């Protein structure tokens, strides 16, 4: 156990985590040239494109140091706020963390919240200043920022450039010297933490774990504490670039487990694996059932593809247990599903995966959070509202509560004003303002989660010219004044366009929804009135004027092909629209509320 080092990397998106991981693998010769692909640890297409590691993985390498071989387990962490619970479990599986900070951009909010998590878990932090080779690098100043933040010495900060291979050996040596060896009782009953799982269509769920006490053996009868289910450990092993089956994984080490489980729901991140006959008395603390934060309807564009969509969603759920869905129906869109997501990024990922992996074109409705509604009849029993149409009529309604979050924003001092006014506009209340360094400020707000869903990220980026980072954690339900705003097209309510809004914003947002829809709904052969209404009261109105001209006068010297192709394209575009009544609505119109400031 004394030669094992378990560590993770804490970094903001684009600060170079994946490249650095790559270099560590190269340097320890864990990867042959043939196996080498750029950014090894991100192997989903989507992850590569977005430059974010969505699902964490782990990899083992061996590093010889002063005549001894050390086993390194690098546990990768997702870098987006939607996945913060998974990050916390990865951190709990480690004794140390590399804190990667971009020498040009300095510390970001995401990094800080993960750093705090690491500090709470008593991890040894090795600060690494990355991208020192960049022209725009500001190494001295950023070193000061790091020293201020974690209270280390200036010499403790390693200067590196993953891209250029600078500082890699120093990092590896620091891992041996500074990260403590794991502690644990090899003789105690098995006690291992599940920090991730991956769906393999051929072998079922692969569970990634860290053993704290005892050991896990091939063929052992094991038990998952939170789900209470027993399995046989069909295969255990360590994770290199490919899996290495082993007879036993001992205390302190990291490995994978295959039990033949087919459904991701049965393997919960944060759960404890123990021996079925001789179970541990203290499961690893910190387990939580992940709860969806954002809800939206997902419908097939073609109504007859409902069953196909169901199959696709079920398959997605097999490898993404945080996706939840129940069937629902909408007068406008027919049959579909109400889905719960960890956050907006998660929603976008699911939508894209449906399109890419299953070739399903879907309509996503306006996302919303989940509210508690109390009726006059029973003022103590909440009705959970995760679809605007489920909100009880105003006459029966006693009150509504909505989820609040504690938001942390780090920005440059010159943007404090605009950031504050944005947060106040978003119904936020400032709770704290801390100068991290002379020109970097951390602002804390309590604000409704619902406001984050509506175009918050984009606006934050705009008002801060990109120099703001954002993180949040839920702080419970608070009483709120909400109304349901309906949208009528050509006189018919389109339920899929309804939104729950705070009463103070309802008029303004209702008006802007109408304006945005006017932009997005193509002109048709007749006038289309667009109205926003609260109950029977119309609060805003716009009209999409009838199409007057849809013909080109001339044909370029007999270029019939070009004209035909243009019209074919026009027809293909229409295939992506949904007919509601006699109005054709493009996919993106259902998300119009999110694009009000574009």
């Amino acid at each position, binding site marked *: 156990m004394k030669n094992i080092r378990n560590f993770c990397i804490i970094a903001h998106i684009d600060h170079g985590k994946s490249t650095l991981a790559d270099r560590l693998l190269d340097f320890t010769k864990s990867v042959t040239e043939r196996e080498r692909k750029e950014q090894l640890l991100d192997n989903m297409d989507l992850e590569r494109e977005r430059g974010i590691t969505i699902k964490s993985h782990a990899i083992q390498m061996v590093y010889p140091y002063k005549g001894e071989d050390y086993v390194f387990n690098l546990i990768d962490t997702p870098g987006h706020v939607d996945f913060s619970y998974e990050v916390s479990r990865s951190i709990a599986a480690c004794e140390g963390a590399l804190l990667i900070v971009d020498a040009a951009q300095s510390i970001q909010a995401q990094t800080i919240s993960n750093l705090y998590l690491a500090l709470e878990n008593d991890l040894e932090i090795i600060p690494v200043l990355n991208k020192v080779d960049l022209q725009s690098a500001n190494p001295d100043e950023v070193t000061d920022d790091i020293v201020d933040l974690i209270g280390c010495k200036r010499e403790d900060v390693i200067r590196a450039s993953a891209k250029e291979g600078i500082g890699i050996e120093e990092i590896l040596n620091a891992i041996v010297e500074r990260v403590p060896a794991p502690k644990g009782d090899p003789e105690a009953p098995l006690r291992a933490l599940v920090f991730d799982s991956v769906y393999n269509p051929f072998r079922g769920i692969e569970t990634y774990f860290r053993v704290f006490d005892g050991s896990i053996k091939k063929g052992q009868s094991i038990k998952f504490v939170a789900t209470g289910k027993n399995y046989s450990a069909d295969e255990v092993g360590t994770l290199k670039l490919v899996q290495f089956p082993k007879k036993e994984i001992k205390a302190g080490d990291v490995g994978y487990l295959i039990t033949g489980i087919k459904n991701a729901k049965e393997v919960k991140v944060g759960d404890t694996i123990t021996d079925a006959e001789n179970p541990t008395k203290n499961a690893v603390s910190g387990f939580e059932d992940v709860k969806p934060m954002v809800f939206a309807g997902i419908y097939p564009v073609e109504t007859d593809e409902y069953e196909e969509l169901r199959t696709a969603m079920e398959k997605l759920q097999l490898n993404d247990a945080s996706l939840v869905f129940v069937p629902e129906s909408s007068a406008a869109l027919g049959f579909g599903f109400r889905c719960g997501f960890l956050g907006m990024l998660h929603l976008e990922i699911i939508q894209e995966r449906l399109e890419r992996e299953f070739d399903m074109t879907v309509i996503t409705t306006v996302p919303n959070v989940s509210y508690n509604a109390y009726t006059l009849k029973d003022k103590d029993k909440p009705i959970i509202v995760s679809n605007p149409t489920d909100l009880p009529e105003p006459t029966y309604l006693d009150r509504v509560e909505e989820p609040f979050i504690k938001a942390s924003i780090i920005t440059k001092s010159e943007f404090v004003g605009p950031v504050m006014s944005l947060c106040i506009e978003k119904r936020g209340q400032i709770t704290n303002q801390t100068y991290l360094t002379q020109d970097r400020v951390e602002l804390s707000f309590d604000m409704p989660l619902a406001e984050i869903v509506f175009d918050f990220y984009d606006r934050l980026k705009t008002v801060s010219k990109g120099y703001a980072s954002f993180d949040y954690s839920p702080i419970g339900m608070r009483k709120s004044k909400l109304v349901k705003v309906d949208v009528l097209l050509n006189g018919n309510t389109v339920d899929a366009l309804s939104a729950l809004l705070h009463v103070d914003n309802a008029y303004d947002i209702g008006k802007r929804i109408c304006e945005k829809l006017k932009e997005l709904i193509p002109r048709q052969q007749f006038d289309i009135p667009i109205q926003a209404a609260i109950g029977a009261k119309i609060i805003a109105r716009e009209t999409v004027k009838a199409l007057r*001209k849809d*013909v*080109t006068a001339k044909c370029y010297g007999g*270029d019939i092909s070009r004209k035909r192709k243009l*019209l*074919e394209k026009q027809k293909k575009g229409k295939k992506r629209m949904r007919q509601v009544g006699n109005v054709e609505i493009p996919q993106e119109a259902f998300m119009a509320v999110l694009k009000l400031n574009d």
Partner: protein
Amino acid sequence: MFYLSKIELKLKEFDEVNPTFEEIILMSSLYIHIPFCKQACHYCDFHFSTSLKHKDQLVEAIGKELSMRKNELPGAVENIYFGGGTPSLLSESDLTSIFETIYAHYEVVEYPEITLEANPDDLDISYLQMLSGTKVNRLSIGVQSFFEEDLKLMNRAHNAGEAESSILLAKQFFDNISIDLIYGIPEMSVERWQANLSKALELGIPHISSYALTVEPNTALKHFIDKEIIPPVDDDLAKLHFDILVDTLQNMGYENYEFSNFGKPGYFSQNNTAYWTGKFYLGIGPSAHSFVNSTRSWNINNNPKYIKALEAGELPAKREELSRTDRYNEYIMTRLRTQWGVDLKVVETEFGLNYAAYLMDHIQAFQQQGLLKLEGDILKVTGDGKFLSDGIASELFMLNLK
């Protein structure tokens, strides 16, 4: 393969010769593109150059292309059309040499329609005299408007005076004259548009092509509109102008035989008709398009490259084979623009029952909206549907699911 219905064949009586059925449907067009202009019109995205440096070489290259492609057309040439650009920049010797090449290599009917597009400012007495001595027997004059403010906005090379005088002069030499008129110009009042039409009627022009001003990407017009120097084009205004155009000309005995074209009986443009009725045509010159059998092809749209290729004895063209679906889509798209309409019998025999059934399914909504009508087996756009005919055609398309 051939889209001419019996009804249409009856419409096209050839009294000068007695061609067989086979010969009639194989009658073809030659289009010759002259890619030079003295100055650029603000709305134009056709291919042209304002440098006349390479004109001689280009005429030579056109001759070469004509002789290289002499075996492509299966039938006789019934019309020749010089388009542009500005073909009225061609000299007598240019024209003579092109005609010599055509007559040496192609079978041309006895009385072909031979049109030359001309700009009013080129049509002085001496040029017209010269033209009337060549085989050219029809003029298409790019008048566009009889009003100075419109011509300025479009950056035309001629002025209002030349617009009128060129027609008066041309009438002394030619009987078969067409003029172009543009409507839907920003700030063009209904009165001014009516005055334009009255002027054309007063001058006794037997054929009028009339186009809505269209803002194409990468044109000066688009730039000026984006910069708010010129107000944007208004579809409602264009529709208003179009309705006035159709009413006025139909009352005066012109037929709106194709969306943008109006002619007195006997004066329909054969060249334009060929495009919309699926007849074969060879396009010669840079950027020109051809259609023979089920192949469409188009030449490179770059003058020096075109010249270089032909000097090397190569044809700088790209081609595309049309699938059955492509041909169906084109048939719908082109025929809906004409007064001959879509013949459901032709759809069934040429493309099959599936296509005919698909079409019947998809026209119902438009019939209910009064945008399409069936007259026996012939499907046509109604007066209300005309201005939406591309969109309607697109809805009737079968999608290529390649």
